[in-house]
C-alpha cells in the first residue's frame, strides 16, 4: 500500500477549545501535502499529535497502514516521522554536527563521541538532497535559511520518511523559499512524504500535490492542488471574503516628525547591524520598513527608542535632537512604541490591565500627584475609559494581563500608546501571532491614527501588511535602506527583490 500516514477521527480538546474535531488526514508516499488554515485552526496541534508531543483524546493513527500509538517524539522518530518546527529546536552554542546527532550520537571506545563519523555522515546526507552545510559551523552564526536546513538534516539523519514542516517559509526570503521547495521536491522524488503546514495560499498552490484545509479544528475539505485556486482556498479557510486591502484614502503628508540620518550601530555581537540608515516620517503618513528579519530591524527600533547607542548619525523628533537621550525622555517627548514581542516588552504579564495601561507613563500627570505618590483613583478611571473605548475584553481592570488572549493583550498596548496621541508611533510586527479579526482591528487603528495626523513607522516582515498599510515603503537590507518607494508605485516582486539584495536597475 502507498499510504504513508493516515490520521482517522482525531479529536483533541484543551480547556476552553476544541483544537481538533474528528480530523481525517491521508498522505501517500512520495507526496507533498499542504495543511492550510488560519492561526488557531488546529494545524500545529494536529501535527504535534502526529509527532507524539500531544496525545489525542480520540482517534487513530496508521503508519504504513499499521495502527500505531505515538506517545512521545522518540516514538515518532522511531516510526520515521520527523518535524521541523516553526521555532527552531537548535542549540546555539553547539555546532551543526552536534545539533544533528543530538540524542543519537555515534560513539567510539564505548563512551566517547565519534566526531569523524558524524561529519562524514552529514556530508553524505546533505549532498543527497542538495542541502549542503559546514558541519563544524556554530548554529548561532548561521542565517535563518541555513538553520532550517540543519533542522531538515536532523530529521533525515534520524531516518525520517515523513517530514512535517511547520510554517517553514515565514522567515525566508523569496529566494530561500525557492531553495526549500526544490529540496522538498527532491525528497518527494525519493519516495518521502512531506506535510507542509502554512497559511500562505500562493505557496501551497505552488508546491503541493494535495491540500487539506482546516477551519476552527475541523476539516473543511481536501483538494488536488491543480484543481483549485487561491481564492477558493481562501474562502474555505475563512468562510468569508477577506478584504486584502483596507480603506486607505490618500492624505497629504504633513511636516517631518522623525528624521534619521546616517545611523550606524552595533548588534549584540559587536558587529555592524546598521550601516547607514536615513529616512523621514511625516505627519499623516505610514512609512513601512520592509525586510526579512535579521537585517537590522530590531536594532533600528532599539536605536529609535533609546535602548541602543548609535555609533554614528543623528536622530531628531519634531525638530529636536534625541540621538542619545534616554527612553524615558523620548516617551516624554511623544515617542510611542508598539513592540515586536508584546509579552516581553509591551506588557508586564503579572501586572493588572490597569497597571499595564499606565506603564511608561506612571510618573507623568495625571497619575503622579506631588511627591512620588501614585494616584490610583485617576488611573482607575483612565483604565475604565480605555477598556470601553478600545473594547478590551477583560473580566475586570484588575485581571492580570497573563490571562488575556493575544489579541486582547495587543489592544491593551494599543490603548495605552494611542490614547496619548503621540507624535510618533513605532509599530513592530504589530499583528504577529494574531488571528484575522485581531489583525484587522490593529490595521484599522493604525490607519485611524494616521488619519488623525499621526506619524507611524511600521516595521513588518509581512509584505502583505506593508503593502496594505503603508503610504511609502522603505526596504532594509543588511543594515542599509536600499530604497524608498511610494506604495502605489511598487509591487511585491520588486520589494522581494530589493529585500534580498537585488535591484531593478
Amino acid at each position, binding site marked *: 500500500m502507498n499510504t504513508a500516514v493516515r490520521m482517522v477521527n482525531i479529536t483533541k480538546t484543551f480547556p476552553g477549545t476544541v483544537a481538533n474535531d474528528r480530523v481525517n488526514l491521508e498522505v501517500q508516499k512520495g507526496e507533498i501535502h499542504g495543511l492550510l488554515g488560519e492561526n488557531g485552526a488546529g494545524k500545529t496541534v494536529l501535527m504535534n499529535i502526529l*509527532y507524539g*508531543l*500531544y496525545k489525542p483524546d480520540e482517534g487513530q493513527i496508521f503508519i504504513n497502514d499499521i495502527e500505531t500509538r505515538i506517545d*512521545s*517524539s*522518540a516514538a515518532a*522518530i522511531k516510526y520515521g516521522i520527523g*518535524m521541523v*518546527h516553526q*521555532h*527552531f*529546536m*537548535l*542549540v*546555539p*552554542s*553547539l555546532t551543526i554536527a*552536534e*545539533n544533528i*546527532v*543530538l*540524542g*543519537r*550520537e555515534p*560513539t567510539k571506545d564505548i*563512551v*566517547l*563521541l565519534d566526531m569523524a563519523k558524524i561529519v562524514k555522515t552529514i556530508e553524505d546526507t546533505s549532498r543527497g538532497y542538495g542541502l549542503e552545510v559546514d558541519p563544524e559551523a556554530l548554529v548561532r552564526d548561521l542565517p535563518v535559511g541555513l538553520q532550517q536546513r540543519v533542522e531538515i538534516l*536532523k530529521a533525515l539523519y534520524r531516518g525520517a520518511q515523513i517530514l512535517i514542516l511547520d510554517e517553514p517559509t515565514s522567515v525566508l526570503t523569496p529566494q530561500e523559499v525557492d531553495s526549500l521547495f526544490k529540496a522538498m521536491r527532491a525528497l518527494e522524488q525519493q519516495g518521502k512524504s512531506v506535510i507542509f503546514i502554512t497559511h500562505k495560499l500562493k505557496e501551497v498552490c505552488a508546491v503541493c500535490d494535495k491540500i487539506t484545509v482546516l477551519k476552527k479544528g475541523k476539516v473543511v475539505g481536501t483538494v488536488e492542488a491543480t484543481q483549485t485556486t487561491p481564492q477558493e482556498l481562501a474562502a474555505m479557510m475563512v468562510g468569508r471574503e477577506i478584504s486584502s486591502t483596507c480603506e486607505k484614502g490618500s492624505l497629504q503628508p504633513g511636516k517631518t516628525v522623525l528624521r534619521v540620518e546616517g545611523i550606524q550601530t552595533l548588534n549584540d555581537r559587536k558587529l555592524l547591524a546598521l550601516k547607514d540608515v536615513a529616512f523621514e516620517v511625516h505627519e499623516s503618513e505610514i512609512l513601512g520598513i520592509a525586510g526579512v528579519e535579521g537585517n537590522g530591524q530590531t536594532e533600528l527600533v532599539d536605536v529609535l527608542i533609546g535602548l541602543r547607542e548609535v555609533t554614528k548619525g543623528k536622530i531628531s523628533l519634531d525638530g529636536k535632537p534625541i540621538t542619545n537621550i534616554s527612553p524615558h525622555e523620548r516617551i516624554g517627548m511623544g515617542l510611542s512604541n508598539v513592540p515586536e514581542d508584546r509579552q516581553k516588552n509591551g506588557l508586564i504579564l503579572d501586572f493588572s490591565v490597569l497597571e499595564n495601561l499606565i506603564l511608561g507613563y506612571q510618573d507623568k500627570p495625571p497619575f503622579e500627584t506631588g511627591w512620588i505618590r501614585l494616584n490610583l483613583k485617576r488611573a482607575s478611571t483612565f483604565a475604565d475609559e480605555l477598556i470601553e473605548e478600545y473594547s478590551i475584553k477583560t473580566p475586570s481592570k484588575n485581571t492580570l494581563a497573563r490571562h488575556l488572549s493575544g489579541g486582547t493583550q495587543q489592544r491593551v498596548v494599543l490603548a495605552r500608546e494611542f490614547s496619548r496621541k503621540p507624535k510618533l508611533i513605532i509599530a513592530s510586527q504589530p499583528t504577529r501571532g494574531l488571528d484575522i479579526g485581531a489583525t484587522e482591528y490593529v490595521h484599522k487603528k493604525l490607519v485611524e491614527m494616521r488619519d488623525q495626523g499621526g506619524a507611524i513607522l511600521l516595521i513588518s516582515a509581512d509584505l502583505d501588511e506593508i503593502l496594505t498599510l503603508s503610504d511609502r515603503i522603505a526596504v532594509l537590507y543588511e543594515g542599509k535602506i536600499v530604497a524608498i518607494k511610494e506604495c502605489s508605485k511598487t509591487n511585491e516582486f520588486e520589494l522581494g527583490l530589493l529585500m534580498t539584495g537585488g535591484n531593478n536597475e
Partner: protein
Amino acid sequence: MISIIDIINVGLFAATLRMATPLVFAALGGIFSERVGVVNIALEGMMLTGAFTGVLASFYTGNAWLGVLGAVLAGGLLGLLHALLTVKFVGNQIVSGTGINILAVGITAYLSQVIWGSRGASQSVNGLGTISIPLLKDIPILGEILGSTTPLVYIMLILVVLTYVVLFRTPMGLRIRAVGEHPAAADTAGINVYRIKYLCLMISGMLAALGGAFLSLGQLNFFVSSMTGGRGFIALAAMILGGWMPFGALGAGLLFGFTDALQMRLQGAGLLAPQIIQAIPYVVTVVVLAGFVRKRTPPSDYKPYEKE
C-alpha cells in the same frame, strides 16, 4: 622579625592546593547544576551536610572511606531534593537552595548535639590521613606541593579532568549542555530532559558533599558546626570566574585558595588584627565578581522547562 620568606614559601603553595580543593569540588558541582539550567545556591548546605555525614559515618564504622561514601550519598540525596523541588514541582531555585542551606545548618548542629552532646564539635574520628606518591614526592618543589597530601586532593584533580571529558567528549555531556541551553530542542531530539536534570543535580550534590568531606575528614578529623564558612558561595564565584568550565573552576579555585592560605599565614605573622585578615578572602571574592563578571555569560537561562 617576620621576613617575607616565612609567608611566601613552598608551604604556601601546598596550602593553596589544599584550601582550593573543597572549593573546586563544590564548583564542579555547581557546573553540573548550572549547565543543566538550575541555579544551585545550596552548595554551602550540601557541603556542610557532606562534612557532617562523613564524620558521622566514620564514627559509626571506624572507616574514613566509608565516611566519604556516606558524605557522597547524603549529598546525592540533597541534590535529589533540590531537583524535586525545582524541576518536578517547578519551585523557585534560589528559595529551594536557601531552604536546604538553613536546614543543613540546623540538622547538622541538632544531630551533633544528640549524638555527641555538643553543638560545637563532634568527637574525633578516623580521618583520611595522607598518602604519598613514590616518585613524585621526591621532586624538589613540586613534590612538596603535590607528592604527599590527603587523597581527596588527587581525587579532585582527577574529577576536574573527568568532568571536562564527560561534558565535552561524550554523548552524555552533549545532552547535558543541550538540556541546559535549549531544553525544548533536547526534548524534541528524544532526550529525557527531566532525567538528565535529576542526574546532574544529584551529581552536583555529591561533588559538593565531597568538598565538605575534605574539610572534616581530610583536613581534620572532626566536625565543627558551620565549618564550611561560606565556602559554598565562594565556590559559586569560582564557578562563574572559571566560565562554567572545569579547568576554569580549578584555576579560580586555586586563586581563592591562595587568598585563604595567605590569610592564615598573615594571621600567624601578626601584622594586622585577625579580623581584618580574615575578611580578605571575602573581599577578594566581591572584587573578583565585580571585576570579571562582565566577560562571562552563563550557559543557560535557568527557566524551568515544562512540556505542554
